[in-house]
């Protein structure tokens, strides 16, 4: 991807919202120190969370927050792809379906009946799916919410035509570089950190809780070893499986690992 600065001095950036809490868009707005530099480097052409002013496409970079949960969104995402040269999915809703993908393990209509007085007016899909399930995505930024530093790094890398600097190391490396005490070993708390992509700066373990994988599965994670290591620490039934089935539940590696954990647990019960 090249944002050729000569022909287009300020690349046009669009930020879209799909099914999400807006937290990742807020992470962009929270870039207080960098926002002025960012505005001088790119033309923020479409960002309804920030401004009602909309400049027409096509856009050089599209940033999509949220997952696809309605028939309307399934159509709209195709239009988004068509008007963006380079498409980034932002945050765990966009990269793995988000917390709302819990519906994928249940029946969406039962939820709808439980929550809404008139569910017949709702139009929704049975599943919450990541953006990449619908259209080709050029880059994924994981996190619930994303680390704002990562957003800067991705935009800077696009502007400078280089590979973003976020190595695929596990959360454990960030814990140890910070001097955080391992919650698994010292506290007996299950933690997905060993198989989760770093980038959060070990936020949860630094606050005494296990990682629930909002930055998604590490490409190099050993998931069978992970569930074998963490399940003995479960403080309530299926804690490890539930961690895997939380914010990044639709990520294929987590889905398979959660299934394996539940199977192992039921096998143990049967004995």
């Amino acid at each position, binding site marked *: 991807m090249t944002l050729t600065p000569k022909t287009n001095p300020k690349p046009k950036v669009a930020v879209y919202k799909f099914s999400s809490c807006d937290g990742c868009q807020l992470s962009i707005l929270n870039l207080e120190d960098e926002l002025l530099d960012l505005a001088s480097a790119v033309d923020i052409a479409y960002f309804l969370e920030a401004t009602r002013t909309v400049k027409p496409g096509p856009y050089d970079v599209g940033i999509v927050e949220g997952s696809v949960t309605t028939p309307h969104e399934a159509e709209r995402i195709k239009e988004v792809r068509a008007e963006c040269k380079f498409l980034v999915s932002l945050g765990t809703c966009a990269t793995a379906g988000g917390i709302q993908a819990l519906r994928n393990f249940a029946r969406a209509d039962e939820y709808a009946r439980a929550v809404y007085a008139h569910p017949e007016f709702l139009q929704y899909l049975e599943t919450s799916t990541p953006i990449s399930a619908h259209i080709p995505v050029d880059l994924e930024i994981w996190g619930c919410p994303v680390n704002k530093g990562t957003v800067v790094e991705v935009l800077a890398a696009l502007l*400078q*035509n*280089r*590979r973003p600097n976020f190595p695929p190391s596990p959360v454990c490396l960030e814990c140890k570089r910070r001097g955080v005490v391992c919650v698994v070993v010292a506290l007996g708390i299950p933690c997905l950190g060993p198989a989760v992509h770093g980038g959060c700066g070990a936020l949860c373990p630094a606050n005494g809780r296990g990682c629930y994988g909002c930055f998604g599965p590490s490409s190099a994670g050993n998931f069978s070893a992970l569930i074998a290591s963490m399940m003995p620490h479960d403080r309530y039934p299926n804690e490890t499986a539930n961690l895997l089935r939380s914010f990044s539940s639709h990520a294929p590696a987590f889905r398979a690992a959660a299934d394996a954990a539940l199977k192992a647990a039921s096998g143990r019960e049967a004995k």
Partner: protein
Amino acid sequence: MTTTLINTSAHSAGYTDKLLLPHWAEIVKIIPEIEGVTTFQLKFTDPEVENRYRFEPGQFNMLYVPGYGEAAISMSSDLETANGLLVHTIRHIGNVTRGTSRLKVGDVVGIRGPFGTSWPLDAIEGLDVVIACGGIGLPPLRGAIYRIIRNRDKYGKVTLLYGARTPKDLIYPTEYETWQKAGIDMQVTVDRGDETWTGRVGVVPMWFYHFRVDPHKTAVLTCGPEIMMRFVIYEALARRIPSDHIYISLERNMKCGQGACGHCQQGPYFICKDGPVFPFSALENIFNVEEY
């Protein structure tokens, strides 16, 4: 293990005592070679550094592009030919080397080096020399070729066996005639010819197989894709060329160049300081261990 490694004494202080602190060098000339490969001629901005800097063919520099990081890049010339400049032929394929593709004359890059061992050009004097290389494996050997040509009478028969995928992928094609005239038997081969190609077709090890060599007085220098080197070594050993007369240049992930960061550690070696050029006798126990 009691294998003798190459001892390169040319480790002159182009690098500083300050950890990973590069010296700036300005790009004075950019020569496009083939698609995706460029030669940069660089000059240190600090004359004192330039005067101090010495290297041997086969050694490498850590080249720093601000914001992108560092990459280990072999010397693509020798001290005499380069005439005070640093010459690096770079394939723009990784993050850092792609960063270099947008640099212009007058831009600066950071240089730390020279690091590692060199081609053993003194030790192989008196021998026939087969230089077997492929693709981007020729630039690290060009300095050795220059050196051999300058001291041509010190070596026996010298053959350069160079292969690339297609004729368009051959690097430094304009120099082949000069080298041939200077007494190097040029054997150039491509994996796939095109309508203009009348030369050899086939991979480097295959042509090596067809050569007559005198195993008692032949040295092999090889650099290129590891799979190619594997078969070159196989052919050379099958011809009973002793393993300490086969020299190989290895590529590994490197961050420091000084055997300190750990990345290129393999078996008993740090490839960056005990290599990159090894006599194969030093690698016999580890070279064929998968993923070691």
